[in-house]
């Protein structure tokens, strides 16, 4: 079969698991008799972007590399790098494989799968990592934590925004998969946490529109990925864990097929360099990539703890490579601090020597992993493995049988675990528990069987696509012949035709001279051919492009200098503008202040004018009022004078009256006194009279009583009721009493008259006083009002002026 393997990188440029596996598989398939072509990438600087180069490797397979010098500018380009799929399509058109086996499509693009599908070529995909369900292929988030899906919604879009946060961190360098939050500056760490686990808007610092766009974009990209993966005819997973994880991708048919590895040079180590037989300290090793998620930092910390507890009872050697140079430097420094040996990168052919110097291999990954090649290599060499109890790793290492598991990311637990191996007997016990590792050839055979089944099943599709079925008999043979040739690789066609032309020359009986290669070459190519013309044209065009590029570069440099000068000038001008703006602002502020003052002055002037006019009016009215008041005053004064005279007159009158009254009162008083004396005399007389009366009365009464008694005794009750006794009516004292009554009545009338006159005098005085008081009060009111208004006017600026 013609088998095409596709990988995103290839040794020696790339030496991690997938790449080395692909190289080993290619060699194994060639050994099995298949024709193998590998399509991969290269960073070779001498090649233009997307240029293809083919070489034949010593193991007998062809390797075509597409140069990649431009990198994705956004997630959509990361999924489908522009131009790569088209180049792969051209390459497929030339190679015409029977089956394409993708080891990965990262850096190459999903379009490669579509190109193979469009050509009705069966597609196999080995799921080496989580790319079918995770655009970061590790299920690791930008903070290097494991994806919490499905507990957190929109995790993929959050990772996109998280990447944007990391990209904004100054001087972060090539952070590869991510950066732990504790290694970020505070604000960025908080933003990253907010984006990944909280509210990307409220806590992550993104606008709501950005968040919505991120979700929509990621959903579209994930949908595209699922759509393309659905085109894969057979997906192979080397671990059941991986199979479970990618079940939700677009992959339709998923089968478990464990890896094989080249191990012919490793197996002998189990006996030739058995672990724990060297008599020295425990030799711990790491082999593999040095990315952050491989957990080498955990191993170094664990080793540090181990050494503090068990000095010189163990060694640690780190073998590996990563393009994350700052991180590798950091690890190397840490290795020095804990006393580990930093061995750096190694080639595959050096692996036996590397493993021979180790007793145990540690794979301290902090991500789920899949089926690490390094574990298989170590086990094949009879080295137990210590690895994280995480993801698929427990499928590769059986705890306490051929290795040990520890808590992922826990340096202390790893240290404790390693400490149990300080007793090399334990190491030997675990080594004895290692079961044979699947070889690469076995793996290749398993794959070849699957390839063939797919090719056979695909034949119907090809027949249908090429419309070979149902052809008239006269056409079928020809169509089949054309179809077979169309499916042949271009190289084979070329070889076949060249051979055929040699035969043609003989069959057509060309003279031998004419068939000589040199003659043929001269005749065919001396005058040039189309390829030569195309090449010359291409060279000329390249030369022209180069000159144009140089010209553009010169222009760019000039432009850059001009831009620099312009920027400097603009910066100066900006500063000037800023300064002028500041001055303008000051001027504007000043003008505003002046305008405000002017307005205020104008308002003030207006108010002044208004006030002045008002004052004028007031003045006029005040003057009028003053005039009126003056008039009033004059009137009031006149009235006052009049009242004064009246009051004086009255006073005089009252005085006169008072005098008269006084005289009269004196007279009356005297008269009263006289009358009083007279009254007293009369009273005395009255009392005397009274006494006489009383005495008479008593005598009379006694006589009456005596007569009454007599009468009574004589008349009795018959005369008692008809006689009215009025003591007052008796002559003598009755007249005095009448005179007293008359005097009293007269006195009473005189007193009443005095009282009335006094009341009259008081009323007259009250009226005059009231009138005067009212007039004076009115005058005082008006005067006080005038004073108040004058005082108010005096309070005004005009008044003050």
């Amino acid at each position, binding site marked *: 079969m013609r088998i095409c393997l596709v990988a995103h990188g290839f040794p020696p440029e790339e030496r991690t698991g997938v790449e080395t596996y692909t190289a080993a598989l290619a060699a194994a398939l060639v050994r099995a008799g298949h024709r193998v072509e590998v399509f991969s990438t290269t960073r070779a600087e001498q090649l233009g972007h997307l240029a293809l180069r083919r070489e034949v490797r010593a193991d007998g397979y062809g390797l075509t590399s597409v140069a990649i010098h431009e990198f994705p500018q956004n997630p959509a380009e990361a999924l489908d790098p522009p131009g790569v799929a088209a180049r792969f399509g051209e390459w497929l058109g030339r190679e015409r494989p029977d089956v394409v086996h993708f080891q990965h499509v990262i850096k190459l693009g999903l379009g490669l799968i579509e190109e193979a599908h469009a050509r009705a070529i069966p597609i196999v995909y080995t799921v080496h990592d989580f790319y079918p369900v995770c655009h970061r292929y590790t299920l690791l988030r930008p903070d290097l934590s494991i994806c919490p899906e499905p507990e957190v919604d929109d995790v993929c879009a959050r990772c996109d925004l998280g990447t944007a946060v990391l990209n904004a961190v100054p001087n972060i360098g090539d952070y590869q998969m991510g950066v732990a939050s504790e290694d970020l500056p505070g604000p960025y760490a908080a933003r990253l946490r907010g984006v990944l686990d909280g509210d990307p808007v409220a806590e992550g610092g993104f606008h709501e529109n950005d968040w919505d766009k991120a979700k929509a974009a990621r959903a579209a990209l994930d949908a595209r990925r699922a759509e393309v993966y659905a085109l894969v005819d057979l997906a192979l997973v080397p671990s059941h864990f991986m199979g479970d994880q990618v079940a939700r991708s677009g992959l339709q048919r998923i089968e478990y097929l464990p890896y094989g590895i080249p191990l012919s040079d490793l197996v002998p180590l189990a006996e030739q360099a058995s672990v724990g037989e060297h008599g020295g300290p425990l030799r711990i090793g790491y082999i593999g990539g040095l990315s952050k998620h491989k957990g080498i930092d955990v191993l170094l910390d664990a080793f540090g703890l181990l050494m503090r507890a068990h000095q010189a009872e163990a060694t640690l050697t780190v073998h590996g490579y990563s393009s994350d140079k700052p991180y590798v430097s950091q690890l190397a420094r840490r290795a020095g601090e804990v006393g580990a040996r930093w061995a750096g990168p190694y080639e595959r052919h050096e692996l036996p020597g590397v493993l021979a110097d180790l007793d145990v291999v540690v794979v301290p990954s902090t991500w789920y992993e899949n089926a690490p090649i390094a574990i298989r290599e170590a086990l094949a060499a009879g080295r137990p493995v210590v690895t994280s109890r995480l993801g698929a790793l427990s499928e590769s290492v059986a705890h306490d049988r051929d290795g040990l598991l520890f808590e992922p990311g826990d340096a202390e637990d790893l240290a404790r675990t390693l400490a149990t191996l300080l007793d090399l007997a334990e190491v030997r016990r675990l080594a004895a528990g290692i079961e044979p590792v699947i070889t690469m050839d076995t793996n290749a055979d398993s794959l070849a069987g699957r390839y063939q089944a797919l090719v056979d099943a695909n034949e119907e599709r090809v027949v249908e696509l090429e419309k070979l079925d149902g052809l008239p008999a*006269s056409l079928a043979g020809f169509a089949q012949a*054309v179809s077979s040739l169309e499916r042949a690789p271009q190289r084979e*066609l070329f070889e076949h035709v*060249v051979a055929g032309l040699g*035969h043609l020359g003989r069959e*057509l009986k060309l003279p031998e001279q004419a068939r000589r290669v040199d003659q043929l070459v001269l005749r065919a190519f001396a005058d040039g*051919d*189309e*390829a030569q013309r195309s090449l010359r044209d291409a060279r000329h065009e390249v030369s022209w492009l180069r000159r144009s590029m140089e010209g553009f570069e010169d222009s760019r440099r000039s432009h850059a200098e001009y831009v620099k000068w312009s920027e400097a000038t603009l910066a100066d001008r900006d500063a000037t503008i800023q300064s002028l703006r500041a001055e303008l602002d000051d001027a504007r502020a000043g003008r505003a202040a002046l305008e405000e003052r002017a307005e205020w002055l104008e308002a003030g002037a207006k108010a002044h004018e208004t006030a002045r006019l008002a004052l004028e009016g007031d003045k006029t009215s005040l003057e009028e009022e003053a005039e009126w008041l003056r008039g009033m005053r004059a009137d009031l004064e006149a009235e006052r004078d009049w009242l004064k005279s009246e009051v004086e007159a009255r006073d005089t009158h009252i005085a006169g009256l008072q005098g008269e009254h006084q005289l009269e009162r004196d007279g009356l008083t005297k008269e009263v006194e006289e009358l009083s004396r007279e009254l007293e005399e009369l009273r005395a007389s009255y009392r005397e009279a009274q006494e006489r009366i009383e005495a008479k009365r008593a005598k009379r009464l006694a006589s009456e009583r005596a007569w009454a008694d007599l009468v009574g005794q004589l008349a009795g009750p018959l005369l008692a009721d008809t006689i009215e006794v009025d003591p007052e009516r008796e002559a003598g004292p009755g007249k005095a009493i009448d005179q007293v009554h008359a005097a009293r009545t007269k006195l009473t009338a005189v007193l009443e008259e005095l009282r009335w006159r006094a009341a009259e005098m008081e009323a007259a005085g009250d009226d005059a006083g009231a009138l005067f008081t009212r007039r004076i009060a009115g005058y005082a009111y008006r005067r006080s009002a005038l004073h108040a208004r004058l005082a108010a006017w005096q309070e005004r600026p005009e008044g003050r002026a």
Partner: protein
Amino acid sequence: MKPVSVVIPALGDVPLLRRAMKSLLLEFELRDVGDELVLVDDTGTGALDRERAALIGERKGVRLVTRETNGGFAAALTTGIEAAHHDLVFSMNSDVVARTGFLTPLTEALGKDVFAVAPAALLGGDAETVESYNRVRLASGLLDVRMPPGPAPTSGCHPVAFAVGGTMLFDRRRFVELGGFDPLFEPFYFEDVDLCWRAWRAGLRTLFCADAVVEHHHKGTIGRYLSEGRRRAAVERGELLFNWKHLGADDLAEHLALLYRRTLDGYLTDRRDDLVWLSLALAKLDEVTAGRDAKFVHSTRAVLALVDGPGIDAD
């Protein structure tokens, strides 16, 4: 007027056949010399036989001959020729519509030194595009078919390199003498060029008769079965085989050089079709060399000279 047997190989397109038959039967009627139409059912399934009643009915002068297997145009034509009643045979594609009066000029042009006569075949009925007026050119070691510059003649008879197999009149006895169509070119294309070229090399001419007009509507069945790419492959293969069969020894070296150049260019510039066509032709190499052994009166270069007009462009 000599009667003619018109032979139409058919792959079953009945409507197309009816259209072709209509013009023919009218021509027969007008000529009234006993022309016949021989329909050859080349479906290999007897499909036309089932349509016999609809196609032929009680018409006179129309026969249906059924092949047991599909053999392609050349084989079907041969079958028809063998079944024909007359010596003069007009081979016709089912997508050709004859214009009234086409047969007589053809028969009149078929002289004793003429192998075949081609009518003016108008592509799609367009008088400006006459398919059947052609030349073969020799340039850079390659014989290829070209249309001569300028318009085709509109009257009289003129030499042409070949008569298109789907519209040519010939005497079947000469057809048989010449060996008929070479199976080397099966299933189709260039068998007619080869036949007429062999005729030329044997001293017999092929003429273009401008007074006989047919329309070729290119709605043939082949297009339903084979893509344009595959039809092109047949053309290119046929051209190569024709060259290998007829190029003189003096031109073979140049031709081989051209093939090497074409091979390398095709490989380097990703024109794999060139490689496919060469492969197809090379697969027939043994049959080609057998064909080169035939003895002829004229060389290819001589024939090129015999075919009048700007047909020779030898380097």
